């Protein structure tokens, strides 16, 4: 067991609430946002999804992920069966970011988006 296998995070991750859209048959995926020294890491859990069916868009400080499920997912709620076809969720990033250097990877049905922070601070002279 290596020590670096475990998380050394700056803050507790932000878990955005799940709000499924039954009318539009859209599931809200689990996601988490973690802050590191120089970047933000946003992760989305997208099971039953192929890489080619994922669309990620970025607008100001909001990142939106949409994905089509490989097959319909049925769930009974209050006696009614809904067949969901999509995942969709938007996550608001709390700080300034460098949108040109965003990278992502998709493995085991989990999408990781690494978003570098923008540093425009001024240095302070120490007397």
């Amino acid at each position, binding site marked *: *067991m290596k020590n670096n296998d*475990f998380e050394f995070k700056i803050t507790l991750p932000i878990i955005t*609430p*799940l709000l499924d859209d039954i009318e539009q048959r859209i599931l809200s995926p*689990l996601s988490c946002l973690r802050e590191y020294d120089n970047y933000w890491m946003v*992760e989305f859990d997208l099971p039953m999804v192929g890489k080619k069916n994922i669309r990620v868009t970025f607008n100001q400080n909001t990142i939106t992920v949409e994905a089509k499920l490989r097959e319909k*997912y049925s*769930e009974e709620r209050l006696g009614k069966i809904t067949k969901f076809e999509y995942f969709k969720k938007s996550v608001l990033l709390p700080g300034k970011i460098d949108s040109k250097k965003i990278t992502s990877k998709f493995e085991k049905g989990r999408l990781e988006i690494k978003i570098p922070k923008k540093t425009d601070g001024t240095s302070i002279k120490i007397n």
Partner: protein
Amino acid sequence: MKISKPDTQENTLLVGFPSNGLVGTFSISYLIHHLKMKQVGEIEVADLPATLFVERGEILGPIRVYSKKNIFIVISEVPFNQYFAEGFAYAVHEFCQKNGIKKIVIVSGMGAVNQSKEAPKIYGLVTDQILESVLYNNGIPKFLEGSIFGVDAAIISVFRKSKIPALVLYAECHPFFPDPEASIIAIETLAKILDIQIETQDIQNRMEKLRIQYRNLMEETIRTLQHNQEQGKRTPQIYR
């Protein structure tokens, strides 16, 4: 609750509850289903907000007891905050005392951010040297360093002062998402410890659907774990 179940073999209790990756929930539920275990009772935790589940018209409590031969299971469908974690740990201990349990095995998840592409690993932690041989004989590496909080910590704290030894299995898992893949390694390890055959194909086939199905429980569990973690922070006064 007392269950009349004297057996010549050593009574073993398995415990599962929502934690990292929902590893305990998946693996213990799968065992109940796969071994066709019968529900024999429920456990009550004082002051726990009233929660009931209805399944095919049947009313079920959130903490249930199952058994088959010398194997007992306690499974909770609800995550516990720090306050209820202690109540749950004492209730499990009381159950063990009343039912002649000789050892307990807790299944939990260990959140690992940089998960390797290989199969998840599993580690064991024991409260009594008597169970060291179980780790050794089954090739389970010891959990050597780290901090534990929440229900795991509450159960370990109660059982390390007890004569009933406890073994905690920690399967490496995703820290914030349901991880049925990690639960498979936990199921296989439990099968070795209990010396039983368990086929995992069924859960392997359903892994992706389980991740969708259990999103809400995972979210609720993470919020509870975060709350426990924040409560557990002990910053020296000078740094506040």
